[in-house]
């Protein structure tokens, strides 16, 4: 709700105003109020885009000698769907944990709705919905009870939680599982329940860490559909993924991350335009011959990429390139013309595949 009102003023004075009126007379709240005001003055020193709900500057996290996240900077605006695309170990989850206020940064600046998650962890986390990489539902409780119990962490009353839990179960297409045990659910259902759980406090920002990893294609599409609905409702989505199709489906804008650094930033289409050609011709000559034949392909298309199992010819017209291959008397075992994807962008940027 805060994020949607992007007037000229920053978000915090309004936040502080709400606090003040909601809690006059309560001492513990006055403390929060003061903290909000202090943070507001902090954000005045670091002016940011008035509609940015998340802003990171030179965000860094090191574990001993390992630099997990290396001075990355980005901003996410309200209602945007923002992705972190990269292979395992790129630093995506660490970044998400810092945003979620559960891991403290080593250096740099981070602001969530004008609040610093290090000093205002509970205040930041109260704004968020979090879908972790590994499910951590309480398997000893029934499906619906998982939502109720989670809502209590936000101090929400049962009079609110009972109807809200039913509404969210319907949204997650789990109404008929309400009284089932969690361990009776499929992987896709557990993910949907975790998403329903993350929405119990009506967050305007949802953090999703690898939301569809390990799910079958049908379950992934169901999940994408639900996430798309949330996006339509104006929820800001921040998700990490190593699936380029997921990033293309869900992200308005994304950063490509590798080894803790941002390699590129843009919309999926702009990244493909910038770092790849419109089409790709995939040729397989058999694993023995791919690299030896590559030299005979010089000059076809814009660029060649030789992988162990296939040769990729980046071209603005794949069919035409395939004709040129045939004209040189080369006979691939299989050939395929496809559109460029973010996978190609990643390959171009890092020389490696996303999933391996």
């Amino acid at each position: 709700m805060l994020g949607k009102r992007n007037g000229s003023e920053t978000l915090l004075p309004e936040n502080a105003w709400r606090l003040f009126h909601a809690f006059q007379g309560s001492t513990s709240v006055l403390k929060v109020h003061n903290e909000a005001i202090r943070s507001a003055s902090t954000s005045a020193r670091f002016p940011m885009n008035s509609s940015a709900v998340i802003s990171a500057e030179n965000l860094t996290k090191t574990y001993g000698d390992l630099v997990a996240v290396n001075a990355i900077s980005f901003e996410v605006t309200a209602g945007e769907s923002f992705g972190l695309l990269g292979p395992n170990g790129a630093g995506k989850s660490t970044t998400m944990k810092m945003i979620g206020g559960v891991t403290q940064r080593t250096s740099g600046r981070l602001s969530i709705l004008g609040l610093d998650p290090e000093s205002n962890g509970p205040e930041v986390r109260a704004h968020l919905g979090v879908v972790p990489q590994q499910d951590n539902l309480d398997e000893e409780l029934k499906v619906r009870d998982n939502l109720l119990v989670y809502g209590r962490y936000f101090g929400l009353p049962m009079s609110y939680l009972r109807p809200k839990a039913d509404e969210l179960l319907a949204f997650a297409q789990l109404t008929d599982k309400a009284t089932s045990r969690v361990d009776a659910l499929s992987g896709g259902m557990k993910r949907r329940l975790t998403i329903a759980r993350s929405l119990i406090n009506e967050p305007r920002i949802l953090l999703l860490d690898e939301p569809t990893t390990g799910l079958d294609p049908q379950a992934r599409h169901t999940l994408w559909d639900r996430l798309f609905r949330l996006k339509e409702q104006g929820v800001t989505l921040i998700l990490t993924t190593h699936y380029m199709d997921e990033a293309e489906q869900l992200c308005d804008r994304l950063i490509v991350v590798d080894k803790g650094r941002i390699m590129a930033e843009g919309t999926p289409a702009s990244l493909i335009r910038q770092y790849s050609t419109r089409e790709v011709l995939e040729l397989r000559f058999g694993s023995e011959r791919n690299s030896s034949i590559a030299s005979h392909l010089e000059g076809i298309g814009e660029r060649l990429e030789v992988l162990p199992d296939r040769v990729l010819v980046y071209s603005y017209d794949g069919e035409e390139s395939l004709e040129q291959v045939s004209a040189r008397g080369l006979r691939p075992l299989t050939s395929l013309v496809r559109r460029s994807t973010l996978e190609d962008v990643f390959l171009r940027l890092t020389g490696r595949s996303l999933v391996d």
Partner: protein
Amino acid sequence: MSETGRSIQRAHSPAVSAAKARRWGSLYYAEHWLRVLAKYGWSVFLYSVAQPVAYLLAMGVGLASLVDANGSAAFGGVGYLAFVAPALVVSAAVMTASGEFSYPVMDGFKWRRVYYGPHASPLAPEQIATGHILACGLRILLQSLAYFAIVVMFGAAPGPWGWLTAVVGTVSGLAFGLPLMAYAASLTKDSGQFALVQRFIVVPLFLFSGTFFPLDSLPLAVRWIGWISPVWHGTELGRVFSYGMEESPLLTLAHVVFLIVATVAGWILTRRRFVVRMGA
């Protein structure tokens, strides 16, 4: 209000959530824990009743009739059942604590990772630790009260302050359980440590803490086990309350101090371990 249109109430603002969590977070997590415990209500209840009945029958009807035939001088002038009952209440509390503060901690951090759900909410790691402790402490208190009620039915608690034995039992459980919880929170894998704790710490403490016979009747070589045992300190304190056992007030004070220091130290260490493990 709920007939038409906006039948669904809105959530209160995030700022309200955060303020409530800062103040009541430990209780919110304790509530979660108690809801899970309620699922096992019957087995918890039966355990709390069947175990005392079995022990009191064995000790009261069986062993006590033999022991009491030799006179009660060795047990400070009370019947054997009255002597042994506070020890049984305290031992049962310590045994329950050794279960509640070991494997479930591993479950929270590693196996089913249930601590990490609340960790993403406004709750802080130390509140998750304290919530776990509050819920299990309540469970141990209820169990000890039930145990004591059965002791009363067996006529084994003559004094008016006997009910304090249940409180002493609970604190003894925490005095043993919280240092164990701090240890459990520092383990990254269970390669049998908890089973070793059960066999080589809990059982010896049960046997050599003046439970079935006065600690003085043991040789010094093993008597020290009692001195460092929350079971002994709790048992002796329970005897003072239950039947007015003769003891130097200084020693009684020492029992109280020992139990409270162990509980508070265990609690502080546990909170610290949780913060380190979840906040890095």
